[in-house]
């Protein structure tokens, strides 16, 4: 090889050496917005637990795209799925794009909620948060009320199975786990309470106000003590007997 060829070879290697680590890094960390390109849950865990095997049900965090949605609604649903996959609650699109939800999109999101496995507490709570942020008709309140009447989630690894006798370590941060287990319900109460307060402060007589209060009253009889306690607190806070 000539000297010129060696120089070309060296430059090529140099360029590759710059590109390869960056490509690997971009693939791991996403492209600057906190959105990961790879879905962590699709990676093979080193030591999968039985619950993880059980989670191998159809697409636990993917929201199906129903037919008949406008392209704008489909775009928003795709964004929601991307946020779920990234586990990045601070994705700014949550506030910039996932607003002004159409009734059709809300309906699709409530269907997605039902499709998600019960253990997907954050995903379920996110849907409740988004719909609850824009309470506009009776169907929205009905959805939140149905969330309040769900069976309690007994453990984050398997909502149907209660935690055994608590160890000291479990008591240590049990409050965090229990709040997470009730996250969709607590978010539903908070969003309805916030909406009610907003209508009252604006002096607006909103026909949904009565429906919200009715939802709280029914939640007082929830088999989940956390939900009934929180509904009672909300009613007291709103000055409703």
């Amino acid at each position: 090889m000539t000297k010129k060829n060696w120089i070309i070879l060296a430059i090529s290697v140099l360029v590759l050496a710059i590109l390869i680590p960056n490509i690997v890094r971009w693939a791991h960390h996403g492209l600057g917005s906190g959105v990961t390109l790879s879905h962590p849950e699709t990676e093979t865990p080193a030591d999968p637990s039985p619950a993880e095997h059980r989670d191998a049900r159809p697409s636990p965090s993917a929201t199906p795209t129903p037919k008949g949605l406008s392209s704008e609604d489909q775009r928003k649903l795709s964004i929601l799925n991307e946020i779920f996959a990234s586990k990045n609650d601070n994705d700014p699109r949550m506030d910039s794009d996932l607003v002004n939800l159409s009734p059709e999109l809300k309906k699709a999101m409530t269907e997605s909620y039902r499709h998600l496995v019960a253990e997907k507490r954050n995903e379920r709570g996110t849907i409740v948060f988004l719909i609850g942020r824009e309470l506009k008709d009776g169907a929205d309140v009905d959805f939140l009320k149905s969330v309040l009447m769900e069976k309690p989630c007994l453990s984050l690894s398997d909502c149907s199975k209660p935690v055994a006798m608590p160890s000291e370590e479990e008591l240590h941060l049990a409050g965090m786990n229990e709040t997470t287990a009730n996250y969709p319900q607590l978010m539903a109460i908070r969003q309805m309470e916030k909406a009610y307060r907003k209508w009252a402060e604006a002096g607006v007589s909103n026909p949904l106000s009565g429906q919200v209060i009715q939802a709280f009253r029914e939640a007082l009889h929830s088999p989940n003590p956390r939900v009934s306690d929180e509904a009672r607190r909300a009613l007291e806070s709103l000055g409703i007997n």
Partner: protein
Amino acid sequence: MSNQLSALILFFVSFTSISAWASDARPRPDLRFDRDVDASLKQQILNDLEFMGSLKGSKATPLHRKIFGKVDGQSYLRWFDDRVSTVGKNLCGSDTAVACVLSAWPNKIWMSPNYTKFSQPQIARLSVIYHEARHTEADERFWPHATCPRPFLNDEGKDVRSIWTGALLQGEPACDVTAFGSYGSQTILLKNIALNCDNCTEKVRADADLFANDQLIRIIDPSSKAAMKKDFGMQ
């Protein structure tokens, strides 16, 4: 021959320097992970710390300034780096634990696979890391928890108990007297993110508020609790 040798030297020098640069450029270059920490767990921790490092706020409460400084991502990362240098993997003696510290290993937090397995709001799981980081402070005897009083009642006068198991928390080491321990600092962190984070989404702020209110109940000294409520503008 000498040309070939020069080219090879050029290649190796370039490669090693670029590799070193790439290594330093990754998030949290000083944070070490034990070999048995799964790639997905490591990635989730790094992503979450990256999120924490991005937070910005123009205000902070006095208690927050005492513990963490400003509501600012770089302050939060420095605070964390000053306490934690290594992450290990451990079940933490429980099926439901997410993280823990073991006093025999200073400056190290142990993460359970539950950190990625459980579907928790992001700010909640991050606050657990900061709670555990507070427990690494040997100078403060690792901020041990206080025994919850008998009876241990909430603001409504009801027994505080585990909703899952029904177990009463009274008599258990699951409370704090001071506002500066792990529960207190975690609550102060969450409340400030709820109140003062300028670049957080509405969901992150709502979540931070929800989880902060739940942790506040663990502060059992009336004057500490009152000081915290005043700090948060709740009184």
